[in-house]
């Protein structure tokens, strides 16, 4: 399977939230349905943040510009990084890359340690205790791998009425994004940028941010946390450590195996220490 990516073009997005709803619907994620259940956020953005039942969130950044207050929209969901910090931190191998680049949590393996939650530079995975158990599990966008592995587009892409979302071969998506950035610059969007081509090893969500990364709430040059990289090193280094110590003790054991000594005895009255013959 070739590497694929979702292309999100913020300049085409109307923030209709069709993608957000489609994600909920396809992945059967519960949502508050009544006014009593739903917390008033004073924003069109709702909920205010991702949660274990909201894997894709349309964000509304209000920015004061020459033309007045403008909304900058962003599709906030897992970027499916090549150097995925969540995958590096997972102690049980529950997070893995699929052949197309999607980073997927295997719920049958997730033990709810939430290390992925703390390690992701974008705070994408969210955890909740599963009903009927005492254990939590982590959740995030899985790029609808059940659909993409059956040659269908992710649910969010199918719902987009303005073609702000596309899905396809990653190289093709990057090329399209670059061409779109060039067009936007010609149209006066001087700060237009592509995001995801090279960040954290290359993402499998490519973004066209027509007003610049910061204006859309994107982190410039995100990095895998140093601590996460150390965690990734800990296992091979400890294997070397165990090898060295076990080898050294084995050598010591072999060298000492024929050791014999005579009986030591002490006469406290005369302060005499005697060592007997070696048997």
């Amino acid at each position, binding site marked *: 399977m070739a590497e694929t990516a979702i292309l999100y073009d913020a300049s085409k997005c109307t923030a209709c939230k069709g993608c957000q709803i489609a994600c909920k619907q396809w992945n059967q994620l519960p949502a508050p349905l009544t006014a009593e259940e739903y917390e008033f956020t004073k924003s069109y953005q709702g909920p205010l943040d991702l949660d274990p039942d909201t894997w894709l969130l349309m964000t509304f950044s209000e920015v004061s510009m020459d033309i007045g207050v403008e909304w900058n929209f962003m599709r906030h969901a897992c970027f499916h990084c090549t150097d995925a910090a969540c995958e590096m931190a997972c102690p049980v191998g529950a997070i893995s890359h699929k052949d197309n680049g999607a980073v997927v949590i295997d719920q049958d393996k997730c033990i709810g340690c939430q290390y992925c939650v703390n390690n992701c530079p974008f705070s994408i995975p969210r955890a909740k205790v599963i009903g009927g158990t005492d254990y939590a599990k982590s959740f995030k966008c899985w790029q609808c791998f059940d659909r993409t592995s059956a040659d269908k587009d992710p649910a969010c892409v199918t719902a987009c009425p303005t073609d702000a979302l596309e899905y396809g071969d990653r190289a093709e998506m990057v090329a399209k994004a670059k061409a779109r950035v060039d067009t936007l610059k010609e149209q006066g969007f001087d700060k237009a940028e592509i995001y995801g081509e090279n960040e954290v090893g290359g993402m499998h969500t490519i973004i066209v941010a027509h007003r610049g990364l910061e204006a859309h709430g994107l982190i410039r040059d995100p990095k895998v946390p140093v601590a996460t990289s150390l965690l990734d090193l800990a296992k091979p280094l400890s294997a070397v450590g165990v090898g060295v110590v076990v080898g050294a003790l084995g050598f*010591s*054991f072999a060298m000492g195996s024929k*050791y014999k000594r005579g009986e030591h005895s002490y006469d406290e009255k005369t302060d005499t*220490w005697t060592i007997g013959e070696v048997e």
Partner: protein
Amino acid sequence: MRYIQRQSAFARGLHWIHTIACMSLFVTGLMLFIPAVASAVGLGAMQGARTVHRVMAVIFIAAPLLAVVVNPKGFKHFLKNMFYKWDAGDKEFMAKFFPYLFTGAKQHMPEQKELKSGQALSDWMLFAFAIAISISGVFLWLSASGVAINGTLTLWMLVAHDVAFVLLGLMMFVHIYLGAGVFQPYRGSVRLMFGDGKVSESDALYHWGTWAKEELAKGDKVSVE
């Protein structure tokens, strides 16, 4: 043959409890450290391992703290053995220890007090790693239980926990190799913590000459078998 009572029933009991807690924590920790193990044993076993890990962690931390409260005299004795200025004999012991360990104990080692300088050093390391693994473990537990702890801090606590786990694990290999008498010249020392706590006159003189002479002269801990 004369024997010296080196370890009290209290010390041996505490050591037993800590051994069980340590071994359980090591095994369950290993399950959480190596992804292939988790895949092999399955989710149910992993969740069980996490629960066991937490129960044993409470014992690991609480047992020595309780021991300090219940037996302050023993704790004072422990501190006295840990905090002392090394003399020439202590330094010479450490300088010769690795050649001794790897050349079939052919070095002539200097007489030692109740705690060899090498033992004190090893205890210090075990103590430091145990504190590091305990503090970081408490943070990780709180974080996983929904207590709002800064994510970066939690991440560094995870690194500290992993590093302390590896170092403590490696130190445990050495501790067991010597303490349980797997190393031929240390044969019989397993009796100290897992037996009746007694050491023969011959072994006592060989390992802790200065201390053995003092105890044999005093006689209150000496018995004949």
